[in-house]
């Protein structure tokens, strides 16, 4: 379990970035952290693996205070994928980049090999195994950064803006991968501005605004509340805005994803069809 107790953080410049954050994270959790630019999301992520230490309060990773254990040790348990993919890449080939962490953690060569192949496959990167990460497109580089961390299968996965630069199909792949991980008992935290991705993945949502947690709850309930969404500089998912206009026809207002929207509308529209047929 990762526990944040009353965590506050101020940068050396005097910029306050986090205030009184309490948070628990355990295996099987799937959490999305959302909020305006500068809300403190990346700062929070860097506290989870000990890259930053709280100015006040404390962070415990499986009972260890992050002030007292090295980042290297924590990184075996807590994998953080940076917002900016260029921060991670230094190997000559994609394959080496993804193998780096695994080798570092002392896995046997054949385990490393299999794990690299599997992860590249899952993220649609197999054809680039021998390519330099620097010669890839933006979206491809982000996936390499993701692959490098996902391959090590840490207990806690912290993904800072994982869907940046990804097309719809890549997002689906990523979603399946994430789903697999937390159903296997890993904890997954994703920081994201992608409301549609969140609406379709249905994690628990934590809204961060000006360094504070301002709301938390299931995605469909948080993302369909106008005041909350505004406060964190988000917009409601398209389905929520659509269903907000349709409540007078007896439809619920907390619909956020296409799947549920379709089921509800199929029913309503079929009824309407029958009515029209009967009346004519």
């Amino acid at each position, binding site marked *: 379990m990762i526990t944040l107790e009353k965590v506050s953080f101020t940068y050396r410049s005097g910029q306050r970035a986090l205030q009184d954050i309490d948070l628990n994270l355990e295996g099987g959790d799937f959490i999305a952290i959302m909020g305006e630019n500068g809300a403190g999301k990346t700062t929070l992520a860097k506290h989870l693996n000990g890259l930053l230490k709280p100015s006040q309060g404390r962070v415990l990773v499986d009972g260890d205070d992050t002030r007292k254990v090295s980042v290297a040790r924590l990184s075996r348990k807590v994998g953080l994928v940076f917002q900016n993919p260029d921060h991670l890449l230094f190997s000559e080939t994609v394959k080496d980049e993804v193998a780096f962490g695994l080798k570092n953690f002392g896995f046997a060569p054949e385990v490393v090999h299999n794990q690299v192949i599997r992860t590249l496959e899952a993220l649609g990167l197999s054809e680039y195994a021998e390519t330099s990460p620097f010669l890839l497109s*933006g979206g491809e580089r982000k996936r390499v950064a993701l692959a490098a961390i996902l391959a090590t299968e840490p207990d806690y996965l912290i993904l800072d*803006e994982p869907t940046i630069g*990804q097309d719809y199909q890549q997002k689906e792949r990523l979603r399946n991968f994430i789903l697999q991980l937390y159903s296997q008992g890993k904890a997954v935290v994703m920081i994201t*501005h992608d*409301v549609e991705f969140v609406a379709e993945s249905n994690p628990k949502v934590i809204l961060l605004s000006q360094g504070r947690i301002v709301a938390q709850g299931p995605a469909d309930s948080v993302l369909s509340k106008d005041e909350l969404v505004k406060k964190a500089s988000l917009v409601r998912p398209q389905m929520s*805005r659509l269903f907000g206009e349709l409540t007078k026809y007896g439809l619920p207002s907390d619909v956020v994803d296409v799947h549920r929207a*379709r089921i509800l509308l*199929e029913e309503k529209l079929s009824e*309407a*069809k029958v009515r029209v047929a009967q009346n004519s």
Partner: protein
Amino acid sequence: MANAPREIIIAKNLGFQYVGARRAAIQGIDLSIREDEFILLTGPSGCGKTSLCRCLNGLIPNFYQGEWTGELLVDGLSVTTQLTSELSRRVGYVFQNPENQLFALTVEKDIAFGPENLGLSREEIRQRVDEAMNVTGTLPLRDLAPYELSGGQQQRVALAGVLAMKPSVIVLDEPTSFLDPRTAEEVMRATDDLRRELGLTIVVVEHRLDLVARYAERIVVMDAGKIVADGDLEETLDEKFDLLAGLGVGIPRVSLLWAALRRDGLVSGKVPTRVEDAASSLGGMMSQ
């Protein structure tokens, strides 16, 4: 008599293969873009969008090595023979990764850097920088160093720097990827306002169509280095829905929903891209 908008970008059979790459990043590109058009360029990750953008401001072939084919004219200048400084004055480019674009000591200096190099008067520079900071909400950040900024704040500054140049073409490569959704909407709206005011040409690379569907009249879809669809955004989405969906284009959720209901035989007519259009059509049917 007013002149008809002229073509500001003309590509003929344009292709480029990076040195050492196994295949061409773009090939057989025929594209002409009129002045004051707002174009959405999309397609799967790795299909060649950024490479095409790099051609538009001369980064390809001037800074990237490889094999060039075909012809490209931007604002009457041939990209292969023109100095990049001349091109970059006309074509503003917001990079996919904002961090790679910021280098001055403070936000304000960064935004002023371009205009200063144009040899403008002090007042003109001042005015442009203030205007750009206003539009992008970067005024409160003016004295910060780029490394002190969050990802989204960096992206706003990069955008402001390009806006302050007032180029005739602005190429924005996933300009909202780090922005919070409300700011992303504001930035797209501001970009469109600028286009209308100044008659700019806008090319936006974006995976999420819902963000730009309101502004872009035209969509260009690429796959594996080639253009596979090019036309009016709403018509293309309707007529080539299956092609776009198959490529993994980020089709707006209301359009996806509509297409599914249409397949069920429950609705008919053109796929909407806006929530309000879908709401009024569906409302009409349910109140029958």
